[in-house]
């Protein structure tokens, strides 16, 4: 993979030189990679050190500086960052073969950018973590995410009206790490030195910011001692599933809702859903927004509960034993956990349908709009049920012990990552592929085509629940060993 990425970067470098746009292409590629690194680390949790917390490292005879160094050395050695490094290194090497830049200076620039990218991702992650733990922090975070998601779309018309802004903006971007690295890779002389100095300055600033955030303990929300409340929304919602399984569903709803990562994902997934829908619509023809939404609706329904849904017992630790002491069949344990995830995912569906009704442009043919809504609802329900069914199988056959309280880091198993990342990619690509191969399938004219999909998905989901119950009973000792960290 590393060799392939390096070769890809190398080819891009040569193309950039041959096209006579070496600096522009290098700037664009490095900027995109930098932003992708920060976003992927924060949304999917890759590349952020979640192995040792400071508390765990305090057991060893290490002072604060060494604890911090140990933690970040482990973090930066995550293979995730090396994928970016390989691409960037290939690009620098490609540019140096035919261009004026030096190979060694390019290599230094790429390594500095790699460090800078890691620091930037950690600063953002820690900032989000600290913010979410503050009173009112969640609301601020939503505003920030909305601003980030909608900002480019809102800014585009302004740029169109005032084209002189763009060169001025690019001029300002010279002070960013990717542009600094691009200057060091492409140019020689003082321009290259200036580029390197820019990245070094960013590294120092980000390291200082990271240290300041790490030193600043998260502000605990004041927890007042209150009277016991017996009337909880979780239990009321769980009660919908009957007296036998209801308390269990209520218990799982609490488990999901009190998880910081799930809450952050809940806030991120909806603006992200809107952003992705708008960004991918352009390439999908006149009905592009609708076709893109066919893919993003399933993402909206499963993404925010995905971490626990694909590893239902990985975060309960020793409490896993408790389930088997309760007077219920093993299948009930599995079903209750899954029902909670499906219920929470289903709650998103009316919200996104409402958002579609309010914000999406109405087609000229009035009949089309309700058809679109039906198709979108079918797509969302299908994605929700298929994903949760597959999540049960991953839970059973590829679980992983995770930290419930960890706000960042990717602690999913290989199967979990394949399902979540693969699910997002599939939801993205499938409508686009259908649009190219079989346009009728994603056209509101043939809306009835999608009607069987939720039924098939429901059959798959119910079949999974039925088949997985006995398997759960026989695999419980293996699962116990994994979730208690003994395997």
């Amino acid at each position: 993979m590393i060799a392939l990425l390096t070769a890809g970067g190398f080819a891009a470098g040569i193309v950039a030189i041959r096209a006579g746009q070496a600096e522009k292409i290098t700037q664009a590629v490095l900027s995109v990679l930098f932003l992708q690194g920060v976003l992927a680390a924060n949304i999917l949790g890759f590349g952020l050190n979640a192995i040792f917390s400071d508390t765990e490292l305090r057991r060893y005879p290490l002072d604060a500086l060494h604890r911090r160094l140990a933690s970040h050395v482990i973090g930066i050695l995550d293979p995730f960052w090396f994928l970016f490094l390989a691409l960037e290194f290939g690009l620098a090497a490609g540019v140096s073969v035919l261009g004026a830049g030096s190979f060694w200076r390019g290599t230094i620039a790429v390594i500095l950018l790699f460090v800078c990218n890691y620091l930037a991702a950690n600063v953002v992650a820690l900032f989000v973590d600290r913010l979410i733990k503050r009173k009112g922090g969640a609301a601020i975070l939503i505003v920030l995410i909305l601003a980030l998601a909608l900002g480019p779309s809102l800014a585009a018309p302004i740029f169109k009206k005032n084209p002189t802004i763009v060169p001025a903006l690019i001029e300002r971007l010279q002070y960013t790490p990717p542009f600094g690295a691009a200057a060091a890779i492409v140019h020689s002389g003082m321009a290259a030195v200036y580029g390197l100095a820019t990245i070094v300055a960013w590294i120092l600033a980000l390291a200082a910011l990271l240290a300041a955030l790490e030193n600043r303990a998260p502000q605990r929300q004041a927890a007042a001692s209150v009277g016991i409340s017996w009337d909880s929304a979780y239990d009321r919602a769980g009660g919908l599933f009957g007296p036998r399984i209801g308390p269990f569903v209520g218990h799982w709803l609490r488990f999901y809702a009190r998880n910081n990562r799930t809450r952050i994902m809940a806030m991120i997934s909806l603006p992200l859903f809107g952003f992705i829908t708008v960004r991918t619509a352009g390439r999908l023809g006149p009905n592009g927004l609708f076709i893109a939404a066919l893919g993003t609706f399933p993402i909206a329904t499963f993404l925010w509960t995905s971490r626990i849904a694909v590893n239902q017992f990985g975060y309960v630790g020793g409490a896993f034993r408790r389930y088997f002491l309760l007077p219920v069949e093993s299948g009930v344990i599995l079903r209750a956990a899954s029902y909670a995830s499906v219920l929470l995912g289903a709650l998103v569906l009316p919200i996104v349908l409402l958002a579609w009704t309010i914000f999406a442009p109405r087609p000229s043919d009035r009949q089309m709009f309700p058809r679109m809504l039906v198709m979108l609802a079918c797509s969302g329900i299908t994605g929700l049920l298929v994903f949760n069914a597959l999540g049960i199988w991953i839970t059973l056959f590829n679980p992983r012990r995770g930290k419930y309280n960890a706000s960042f880091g990717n602690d999913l198993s290989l199967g979990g990552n394949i399902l979540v990342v693969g699910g997002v990619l599939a939801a993205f690509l499938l409508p686009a592929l259908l649009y190219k191969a079989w346009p009728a399938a994603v056209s509101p004219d043939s809306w009835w085509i999608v009607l069987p999909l939720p039924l098939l998905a429901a059959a798959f989901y119910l079949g999974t629940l039925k088949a997985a119950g006995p398997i759960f009973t026989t695999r419980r000792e293996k699962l116990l060993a994994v979730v208690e960290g003994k395997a």
Partner: protein
Amino acid sequence: MDAIRLTNVVKKYGPVIAVENLSLSVRAGTMFGFLGPNGSGKSTTIGCMTGLLDPTSGQIELLGEHFDANSTALKRRIGVMPETLGLFEPLYAHEFLAFVARMFGLDETTTRRRVTELLDALELTDTSKTLSEYSTGMRKRVAFAAAVIHSPEVLFLDEPFESIDPAGVSLMKQWLRRFTDQGRTVFITSHVLETVERVCTEVAIITQPGKLVWQGDITALQHNGQKFDSLESLFLHLTGERYADLNWL
């Protein structure tokens, strides 16, 4: 009548034998101490007796009925405080206890009354903290409360007294005595032999791997005709005293 009966129970993890051909019976109304060195298979045995683990072979009977992982009706009649406590960390104590009570089929009024009474009696009235924020002793009290909330007929307690302060231990012992006075059975594992000696009426000692070497009345501590003045001396005689002179320590 025997409340617990194990017949030739074997538990293997691959080639490793954790419990070897264990046969044991505990009369109803007994406070039974189940002792053994670390790693001797006590928790594994409790795991088999409570449905967490499947024995590789052998029979388990609780309250006169065959017991296995699917015996949900029997599970309603037993209470368990597992070694790892089995607490759901993000919950508050009252939420956790109410969840357990409801799962054991208690109605809402009884659930609320018993949860409140248990929290008061065990001094777990700080409602601002989730279970993850509780001290070890407080977590143990919650796990004990969860084991007794449905008023079971047989109670399995794995290391119940460690980390709990003397007042808490005294209260728990008082409850357990009343429990057995009513004809119900308590099965305790512990390394605190003095407490076991004071609380239990009958004791079994196992050695690695889960092999029964002694079972008898706490008032008759004898082995091969030799009398012992304390449970500790009998235990050390059966399991072997160890000496290691580490001159650097």
